[in-house]
């Protein structure tokens, strides 16, 4: 970013620790969205191999059915679950649901929008993502 505008730039997001879990969620949402998009494009390409017939398909499948491939898939699962659960939370928030009611603020000012409901939403998104990832790993490596 140009010095004269003094914008914090992307590095401002790399350090989400300052602003609590909501900021972490923001950052994960972006990452997972982009990750999923990348996977999605890859997935479309992957499936297009079916047009190359049984041999082509199996060939390509073997390329992905490796330990790295499974690890990537596990991350994708985690991203997908997090993005979905957090996405639903964010959508509710964006609709004005669960963000608290306007009221006279009293010192020390605790912002009502940064409430436990949304924090629970974020934590459960993370936990669910982790669980799903484990489950995926178990399924993929368990065989």
């Amino acid at each position, binding site marked *: 970013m140009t010095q004269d505008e003094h914008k914090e730039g992307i590095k401002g997001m790399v350090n989400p620790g300052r602003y609590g879990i909501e900021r972490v969620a923001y950052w994960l949402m972006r990452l997972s969205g982009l990750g999923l998009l990348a996977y999605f494009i890859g997935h479309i390409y992957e499936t297009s191999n079916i047009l190359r017939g049984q041999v082509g398909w199996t060939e390509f499948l073997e390329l992905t059915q490796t330990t790295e491939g499974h690890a990537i898939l596990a991350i994708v699962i985690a991203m997908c679950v997090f993005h979905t659960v957090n996405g639903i939370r964010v959508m509710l928030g964006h609709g004005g649901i669960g963000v608290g009611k*306007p009221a006279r603020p009293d010192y020390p000012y605790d912002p009502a929008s940064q409430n436990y409901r949304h924090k629970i939403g974020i934590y459960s998104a993370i936990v669910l993502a982790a669980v799903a990832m484990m489950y995926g790993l178990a399924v993929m490596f368990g065989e």
Partner: protein
Amino acid sequence: MAQVSGIADEQTSTPLSSSNTILLRISRFNPEHDDSSQFMEFTVPYERWTTVLEAILDVKKHFDHSVAVRYSCRQATCGSCGMMINGKPRLACFTKISELNSNVVTVEPMNNFPIIRDLAVKFERLFDTHQKIKPYLIRDDSELVSDEREFLQSPEEVEQYIQFANCIKCGLCNSACPTMATDSSFVGPQALAQAYRYVADSRDKGKDSRLKIIDDSHGIWRCHFAGSCSQVCPKGVDPAMGIQLLRGYLLGFRS
């Protein structure tokens, strides 16, 4: 007559018996002359109640007259003294050194605002976006005609918007917001919260025109409910709440 000198050393609270000191690191930068910013370090005494602003003014007074810093009310109502204090945007006059729990206090100009010099930053964009969202009651009879009285409004109706009316335009929220960190066209939490303040006022009839203004490619949709704005706001405005409630209108959740 009792002596008053001593307590209210003007602009700074005089260290009486202060044995506590901290290292104050001030970011110095004059874009007209310097290539990059540099920190200058000062050891300053403080008391339980000494604020960061007082410490900076202490430096300005006794060590280096040239520190550029904006201040006025020293009681967190004018919105002048926003700056990065130990990495977070805060009001210097509303942050006590003792509550930072650190022997080193680092002050830098607020992020996402162009620097004029040292700690003083340009506010033109904030003022412009504030004006853009039409921050006034929109209705035909807003100019009083001789004998009219007030528009009636119940205490409950006041409650609907009073929180947002507490905004002191300090810009801390704009400085903390992640969208602001890269998007210089984003209207920003300050202006969006004010848009909600007027929309939520039972006396206002300008909802539609305001919604139109913020429904723009760098408008309200560029907020992702990151919440940092609300976490740094020194006045409990909670812009994040206002923005989401406002978006509720655009999404058809509220009318």
